[in-house]
């Protein structure tokens, strides 16, 4: 439940009430992610994402290693959640 998945910020925008949002790529799957809790995140940065929210920044090599292990442990299922 407290899973954090690392992803790469591809673009940063703001939503209609001025909250920073990012398009984040997780090994090719992209999601809209709220950046309100890591407001310094910019395109090209890597962040740890939990239920659609960045909760911390992370270095690139570490991010890729963590992503690989999550994939191997079969813990990336939530990324496949279809749009409601």
């Amino acid at each position, binding site marked *: *439940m*407290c*899973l*954090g998945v690392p992803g790469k910020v591809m673009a940063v925008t703001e*939503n*209609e*009430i001025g*909250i920073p949002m990012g398009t984040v790529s997780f090994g090719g799957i992209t*999601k*809209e992610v*709220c950046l*309100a*809790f*890591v*407001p310094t995140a910019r395109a090209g940065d890597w962040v*740890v994402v*939990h*239920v*659609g*929210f960045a*909760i*911390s920044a*992370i*270095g690139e090599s*570490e991010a890729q*290693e*963590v992503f*690989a*292990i999550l994939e*191997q*442990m079969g*813990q990336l*299922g*939530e*990324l496949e*959640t*279809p*749009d*409601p």
Partner: protein
Amino acid sequence: MRFVDEYRNEAETQAFVRAIHRRVTRPWTLMEICGGQTHTFVKSGIDRMLPDSLTLVHGPGCPVCVTPLEQIDRAIAIARRPEVVFTSFGDMMRVPGSSTDLLSVKAQGGDVRMVYSPLDAVRLAQKHPARQVVFFAVGFETTAPANGMAVWQAAKLGLENFSILCSHVLVPPAMEALLGAPDNLVQGFLAAGHVCTVMGYEEYVPLAAKHRVPIVVTGFEPLDLVQGVHMAIAALEEGRVGVENQYTRAVTREGNRPAQKLLGEVFEVCDRAWRGMGVIPASGYRLRSEFARFDAERRFDVGGIEARESPLCIAGEILKGLKKPHDCAAFGSRCTPEHPLGAPMVSSEGACAAYYQYGGKG
């Protein structure tokens, strides 16, 4: 059976396992708080590589497992209402209530939808102004900022048709309850990494000092877990108490300040009932009065629902670390992931489901 035969850093992980064997001179009992950590311990087989004198017990850190049956029944009652679009993380959909589960409500025509993020629920509310969109807000401190932000945004957007069924729980009060119990067996903790990413670990310092235990903030990979166990064992063997941080790559002492600020704006601490553990003082979040109009329990009047647990299920003793899944007479026979009697068998992060799938150490 080990499900994952190889994983990253396996050689280094094995080296830490050997170091733990060398370090342990007497019996110790450690608890990992987080259900994700339980899952990795059992799935990777690390629990079975550790010394027999080291007992790992599995804590209450699975939000699905500790959400009271009454709250599941409230979710189901709300989801059945014709005006409601009920949204939830996937984990909660299969949890049996007293008579049915959310997936069955959906199969019977209820508008129940799985969402990846609470913001998906807010967007649904914007898109369907004539419907009442309800989000089942479960989770620990890791998830609370996200769910709080959904409410905060709904308020900013002036949404009248969004609410949350709030079931948030907090880790340190549960640890306090476990450590303060007369039958406590736990001598050291692995604290949950991402909870501390958000909250930092300041609040664990007085807990460790009061109860004279080591608490090691630990990550989720196999290597993180054996490092966390090694640090906790070293502290126990040397008679040290206090908080140490294994998961330095994601956790700082002060945590994520913007997330904490949002939590303070939207939520206030309240007493909360934990499934299997009863009411723990100051162990949950409820919406502050400024946001109370987003509380689904008020909006839909489901406060009177009561539920009765299966008398066979020993989930409470398992969540407190007093018993293991194998100690339950119903485990694997009358209680399976297909027909769970209690929540630890439902969630993949529950200790019983992990043991059923991967065969944990008895």
